[in-house]
């Protein structure tokens, strides 16, 4: 967490008019609240069945027609999974989060002709199990940059909505474990629920005092004000090895998360805000994750670290078609440097998650240098987007 960004608040707040506009444009969603887009092209009536397990990601076919497509994802594995459709450069065209074992969820996504990748992410970990997807049909004319930028905001809104939905669901599981007194389960779910928070943190932060209520570290709290949120519970779990007394904080956390989720789902960001959000997420990594001060009791900082970078990448990749037109060299640099950060993080992977973050000074320095190397080109995105 960081102290509220006044500038972000100013940029992100939307008036009643904006809200109404957002509601009108609300895309069709999966019946379980997952993301999707309203289609304007032809509809491919037969859904693509996706069979996701802990080590496979099978699609009933790898070729679909351009237009609105539905992917019916069934999780036949034992881990919670996610399903993504990526355009070039891992630009998220659509995704469903948090598909529990045995559950089925639909992803409805509009795709133009071209080559894509699909990915299942059992355990929500890493790059996922990838497959190729070809979308046939007449090649659509390349859109102009203004259209590309408009599409970027729609694409990122879909991302925020699906992350927000998953944040609410996973926080509910975490809260349930805390209230049930299940310390082990709560510890397991703590970094998982935070992943969704950290991916969309700049959006969440823009809602004034909700961020400190949900994500304040102990020293962020003004004397005389009660310390609440994730880190309050984190301290009890890891330092006290207990959930005793945490029930009221768990309830508060759930209520605050629900409020933030409701707001995040209707927020409308412009391309410049996307670019700034991508930069801010890397600032978060550079200032609070690298140092290990974010999750100082649980040492689960690397989950947050990766989630921040993923969130940054989602915003940048939404802008990718526009960036490709205006500054292809920057796109190449961004691709390389995002990849370098993810590669650096893999060294610390343990199962679906990460080892406790207790780095040597050399390790810390290396992570710092790859993040700085990425943050520099990401900070240049805004000016490219703003260019007339």
């Amino acid at each position, binding site marked *: 967490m*960081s*102290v*509220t*960004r*006044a*500038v972000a*608040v*100013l940029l992100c707040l939307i008036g009643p008019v904006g809200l109404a506009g957002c509601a009108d444009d609300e895309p069709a969603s999966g019946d379980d609240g997952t993301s999707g887009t309203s289609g304007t092209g032809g509809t491919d009536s037969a859904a693509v069945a996706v069979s996701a397990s802990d080590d496979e990601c099978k699609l009933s076919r790898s070729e679909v027609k351009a237009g609105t497509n539905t992917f019916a994802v069934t999780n036949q594995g034992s881990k919670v999974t996610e399903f993504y459709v990526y355009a070039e450069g891992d630009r998220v065209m659509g995704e469903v989060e948090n598909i529990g074992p045995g559950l089925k969820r639909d992803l409805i996504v509009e795709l133009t002709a071209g080559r894509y990748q699909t990915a299942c992410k059992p355990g929500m970990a890493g790059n996922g199990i990838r497959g190729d997807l070809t979308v046939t049909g007449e090649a659509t004319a390349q859109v102009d940059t203004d259209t590309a930028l408009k599409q970027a905001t729609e694409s990122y809104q879909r991302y925020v909505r699906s992350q927000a939905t998953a944040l609410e669901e996973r926080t509910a599981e975490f809260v349930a474990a805390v209230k049930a007194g299940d310390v082990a389960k709560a510890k397991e779910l703590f970094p998982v629920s935070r992943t969704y928070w950290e991916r969309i943190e700049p959006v969440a932060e823009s809602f004034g005092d909700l961020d400190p209520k949900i994500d304040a570290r102990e*020293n*962020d*709290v*003004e*004397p005389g004000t009660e310390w609440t949120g994730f880190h309050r519970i984190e301290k009890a779990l890891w330092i006290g090895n207990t959930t005793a007394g945490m029930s009221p904080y768990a309830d508060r956390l759930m209520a605050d998360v629900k409020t933030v989720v409701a707001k995040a789902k209707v927020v409308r960001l412009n391309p410049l805000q996307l670019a*700034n959000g991508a*930069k801010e997420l890397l*600032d978060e990594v*550079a*200032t609070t994750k*690298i*140092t290990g*001060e974010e999750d100082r009791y649980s040492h689960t900082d690397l989950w947050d670290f990766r989630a921040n970078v993923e969130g940054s990448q989602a915003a940048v990749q939404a802008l990718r078609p526009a960036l490709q037109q205006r500054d292809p060299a920057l796109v190449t640099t961004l691709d390389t440097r995002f990849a370098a950060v993810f590669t650096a993080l893999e060294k610390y992977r343990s199962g679906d998650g990460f080892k406790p973050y207790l780095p040597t*000074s050399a390790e*810390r*320095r290396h992570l*710092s*240098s790859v993040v*700085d190397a990425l*943050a*520099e080109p*990401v*900070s240049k995105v*805004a*000016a490219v987007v703003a260019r007339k």
Partner: protein
Amino acid sequence: VTISRRGLLGGIAAAAGAGGIGGYAAFAAASGSDGTAPASDVVDFHGDHQAGIVTPVQDRLHFAAFDLVDSASRNDLVRLLKEWTAAAERMTAGRDVGEHGAVSGPDDAPPEDTGEALDLPPSRLTLTIGFGPSLFDKRFGLSRLRPPALVDLPRFIGDTLDPARCGGDIAVQACSDDPQVAVHAIRNLARIGFGTTAVRYSQLGFGRTSSTSRDQATPRNLMGFKDGTRNLKLEDAAKLEQHLWVQPGDGPDWMTGGSYLVSRRIRMMIETWDRTSLAEQEAIIGRHKGSGAPLGKADEFDEIDFGIRDDAGEPRFTPEAHIRLAHPSTNGGAELLRRGYNFVDGSDGLGRLDAGLFFLAYQRDPRRQFIPVQRSLARSDVLNEYIRHNGSGIFACPPGIRAGSFWGETLFA
């Protein structure tokens, strides 16, 4: 006899080309210097108030906090203050420390003065002393003299204080236009103090970040912005009485004419700051980066208009703009005399510079000045994303002294 630095310099200039250690003494003797330097280069150590507060800010800082050693008694403390005063009088006048100084003593004894300032002019050196809250504990019988205004600073939101960079029984601020002169002063005071006191922490600073005189241009901090535009200035005599100097009746009499110093070591995350767009930087600070003018204005000293709107009718100032949060109108009229310095203390092991601002602010009562201002900043300032307060101190700086008295004499009267 000791060598005056001024004398040396004159001698060297007069006999350019000659060199070597052997040469120094000869020149000094030949110059017949009385140890005085040009008025412009010496700041008078004596006066109603301590020098180094409203003195036009020098370019360099060496600040040190000292702790008294466990065995030190009240008499040791008084003796130390007398010895320090004598040394400070000499050094601020451009002379070396001790009866024999740097090079005139016995060959078999270590020189009294460490010597590195020998051939340097006084460089407007000032030495300013302050007493921390811990000096008023039971050790020296000073408890009842602790000024109520010398509070323990509260914890502010976001503080990441390192105890090794906080507090101190005594602080000495050495300011000079030459870094070596400032370092020489602290080094020699520390040396004199061995056995009675030890350095707790010290901080070097460069590039003054405030002006205390209208004759000085407003300098820039490491964020690249002009800092201290609205600082208290020595020309504002009435305001200095109101906001800077402890007045009769304010607190214990020994502090009348003194001032309270708050020091904060503020690390700046300059790398992330540098990746922030110009528009956002200016929105965060509330000033234009180039001119230093308030948003929407043209000149640095134009009046701030927090209600000003842009062409589209949008407010130029966010509620959390730094200069709004720090403005006297937001803080019950509180003003401070700031004389902070930039620092870069090497790197932080993460490939970044350990850089920032060593904030120094003098005031009449921290309870009505620094504390409310910092509360407001800690709570809402967007700048907090780019800074960390990791060192902190508060000190009661006694009034100035006359020749023949010593630092803090009023406290031991």
